[in-house]
């Protein structure tokens, strides 16, 4: 469903993402782990069509992200690190706007809104302005906009960051519920989250993939923390990472 091959993104001398390759099968929940600045958000932005890669390929649902961008964008639900909300709109008006720009058929929009409002627990704030909502509700509104057009692929960038423990549990169980039919790629640096929800793990550090494996294989060789620390320790010098240090 998701196939990334040798993806590289350069900003002048800085290599944000270097030769990244990984894949996710249909219905899999893939955990995308890495320290801050590792390249998780950049990779996700390339997958969702926001940024172009410098080289490499990425395919979503069989469509190439660069040459068939519109097809890919139709099939992805994306929740960026900061939910893309229009502060002056109500939850309902916002979801209606997103439903329209995602190309939903007119007669399916109202049902779609009802469905995601229920799914994300937004009934009590349906008519409230987004700027008057707490972080937890705003995050849920962001998730709702990613889900409203029923996409086969979900890209979630740190979906539980800043939420309180109860909200975190709710979002996690929601993500678990959603997979099965959907492919989910979720980035985080909260390791317990990955152990609980994800079936596959990709660890990225300094722009490179240092580990790609199924969850069931990993838990045999130690706790996820140990595996993570071992994986990111291997690539601790710029030379080892292959990043250009020439000036």
């Amino acid at each position: 469903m998701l196939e990334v091959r040798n993806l590289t993104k350069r900003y002048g001398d800085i290599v944000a993402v270097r030769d990244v390759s990984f894949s996710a099968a249909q219905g899999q929940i893939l955990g995308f782990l890495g320290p801050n600045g590792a390249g998780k958000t950049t990779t996700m932005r390339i997958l969702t069509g926001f940024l172009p890669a410098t080289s490499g390929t990425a395919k979503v649902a069989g469509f190439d992200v660069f040459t068939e961008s519109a097809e890919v964008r139709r099939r992805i639900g994306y929740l960026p690190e900061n939910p893309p909300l229009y502060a002056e709109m109500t939850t309902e008006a916002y979801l209606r706007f997103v439903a329209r720009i995602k190309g939903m058929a007119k007669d399916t929009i109202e049902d779609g809104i009802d469905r995601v409002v229920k799914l994300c627990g937004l009934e009590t704030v349906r008519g409230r302005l987004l700027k008057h909502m707490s972080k937890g509700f705003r995050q849920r509104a962001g998730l709702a906009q990613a889900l409203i057009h029923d996409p086969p692929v979900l890209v979630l960038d740190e979906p539980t960051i800043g939420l309180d423990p109860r909200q975190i549990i709710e979002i996690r169980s929601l993500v678990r519920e959603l997979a099965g039919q959907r492919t989910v790629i979720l980035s985080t640096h909260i390791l317990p989250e990955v152990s609980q929800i994800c079936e596959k793990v990709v660890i990225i550090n300094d722009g490179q993939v240092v580990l790609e494996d199924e969850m069931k294989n990993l838990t045999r060789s130690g706790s996820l923390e140990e595996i993570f620390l071992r994986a990111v320790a291997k690539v601790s010098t710029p030379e080892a990472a292959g990043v250009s240090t020439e000036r």
Partner: protein
Amino acid sequence: MRNVLTIAGRELRSYFVSPIAYVVLTGFLLLGGWFFFNLLARFNMLLTIYSAQQNPQVLQRLNLNEFVIAPLLHNLSVVLVILVPVITMRTLAEEKKSGTYELLLTSPLRVSEIVIGKFLGSFVFVLLMVALTGVYPLVLFAYGNPEIGVVLGGYLGLSLLATAFVAVGVLTSALTENQIIAAVTCLVSLLLLYIIAWPADSAGETIGAFLRYISLTEHFGQMVKGVIDSKDIVYFASVIALALFLTHRSVESIRWR
């Protein structure tokens, strides 16, 4: 088309759910009303003086179009040069700041749909501003006899001018995520285009003609006089098309940078 209307609708609605629309409309009409009142008062005074002096030559020359409507339209155009940058500064710059730019560009929307939608939203709002000032000529028609063709021509000119302003405003908003930079760049660009023909008289033949051709005031001035020449309409259409084309390229560039 549906996407264009969705984006334009959202843009227009956002003006009216915040104080922006009300403050801008009130301010604009307040100024317009003040200009109108003063121009009309002065016109009345001139009429009184010259009728008392029994001067038929000057009295012949005194007409509402030249002495009230034309200066009114010119004054309104100057106010628009100041207000339109402030109205359009947030169209794309704010989206970048608030993260919704990412939403638009990761949705199955074409760049042209985004650009035209944004432009259309601001355009309708500014057109509403101009249309509301139509109440002043209406008052004149009730009490006087201005030439309707000239009035309509002048208003067409003001509408085209305002549309060109909006297009430039959307362009400058696309180039930055800082609204102040967008507003100032637009204001300076519009002012430059406004006064660019100042040295035209003392410049050479070709340079003078060139400066006059690219000057907003020259073409607007012609339409206010009541001259509807295709040359002027083509000029405004070109400015609008160029600004929107450059906006399209700027928004699209994120896909190939």
